[in-house]
């Protein structure tokens, strides 16, 4: 069985010699990201409490780091890196499009309901 693995991560910045080595490399990367998340979550630095695009900067950092972790789990543990481009796009784009749409709709609506509760009248009528 010929299994060609793509052994470069971070756009070719780090190249591993074998698939096993790559797995441990990705584990180290994921552990570092998780450790950063936990440390930020415990200490909550004041400098990251500024609001950016309706949410705390810290929360944006958490979400971005989560997507980074999700990327490496999918690409390296689930071998998405080695699948054909069309399979990759079928799975990833479908999910990403539908999830972003759902999140937008529900969070928009949640914020709207909050405003109705708070102000007691309807501010926007779609």
């Amino acid at each position, binding site marked *: *069985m010929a*299994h060609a693995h793509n052994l470069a991560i971070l756009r070719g910045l780090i190249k591993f010699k074998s*698939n*096993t080595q790559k*797995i*441990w490399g990705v*584990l180290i990367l*994921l*552990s570092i990201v*998780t*450790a950063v*998340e*936990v440390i930020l*979550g*415990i200490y909550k630095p004041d400098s990251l*409490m500024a609001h950016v695009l309706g949410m705390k900067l810290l*929360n944006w950092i*958490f*979400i971005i*780091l*989560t997507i980074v*972790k*999700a990327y490496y*789990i*999918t690409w*390296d*543990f*689930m*071998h998405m890196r080695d*699948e*054909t481009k*069309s*399979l990759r796009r*079928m*799975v990833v784009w*479908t*999910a990403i499009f*539908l*999830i972003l749409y*759902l*999140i937008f709709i*529900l*969070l928009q*609506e*949640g*914020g709207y*309901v*909050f405003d109705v*509760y*708070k102000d007691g009248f309807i501010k926007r009528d779609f």
Partner: protein
Amino acid sequence: MSTTVVNAEAEGKTWGGGNQPLKASYGKMMMWFFIVSDALTFSGFLAAYGFSRFKFIDSWPIADEVFTHVPFLHGQELPMIYVAFMTFILIMSSVTMVLAVDAGHHLNKAKVTLYMFLTIIGGLIFVGSQAWEWATFIKGDYGAIQTKGGNILQFVDTNGHRVALRDFAIADTHDERTAHTRDNGLWFVSEGSLPSYTVDEVYAGLEANENILVRTQIINDEGEKTVLSREESLKQIKENGTLVVEGANLHVNEYGSPLFADFFFFITGFHGFHVFSGVVINIIIFFNVILGTYERRKSYEMVEKVGLYWHFVDLVWVFVFTFFYLV
């Protein structure tokens, strides 16, 4: 004539069946599509959580204050440590799974067996940890008073540290009510366990302790829960307190909005169920590996397929971790 033959051969190559445009077997592709649909299910749950949170954005419980417990370390406030441990366990079992898949590519039966075993152990540790987390959450810690409107009033000392009901409530031994049971009352009516104290006992304790204040659900500009003044504290408990809440279930939640508990049970429960079924499937595959099924088949692709599912469970946890415990 010769051109016709050549055409027919080309057609046979593309449309004659037997080729895989995605270079993936049927089973693997179907696992991927199942994962997409399951991912959408989980996103639906997490987005619904986000909806409820945005709806009550100024009074949602702060996760750091809810999940502060670590087994064997009683009474210490260690937010996030245990969940971080659980996350690490799950990532670790993902690593052993992918190592099993890798060993399968080399048809190395002994290594696949070992790594599958380690994966199963990791999964069991995770499910056990989640059970412990649930038990701690259900049991509760400090206790609180629920108001007529369903809001939660908690108690803090003047330094802002939480105070448990058992530390200040004055129990009135003449006024104890026994819980109703089916065998000494109406057989068709059941009653859950009664709280340790009544609202009046808590009020008496609050009156007697000058240094205890009430903390509401409302989050102030500093991102902390609002603490009421002494007079306001007494007034709120006296006028609005209706129920003593200890711990959390689907109806009440001492940490704040009951919706938080509902979503916690539902989402982590659904994820825990996935981990559990993943462990069961892993055990089946583990025995197949030992029995040599895949050795005879000369292909360990089955390990790869359950591996995909197992990694997906890990992937979902990464998101649950972020949205329940961090954000």
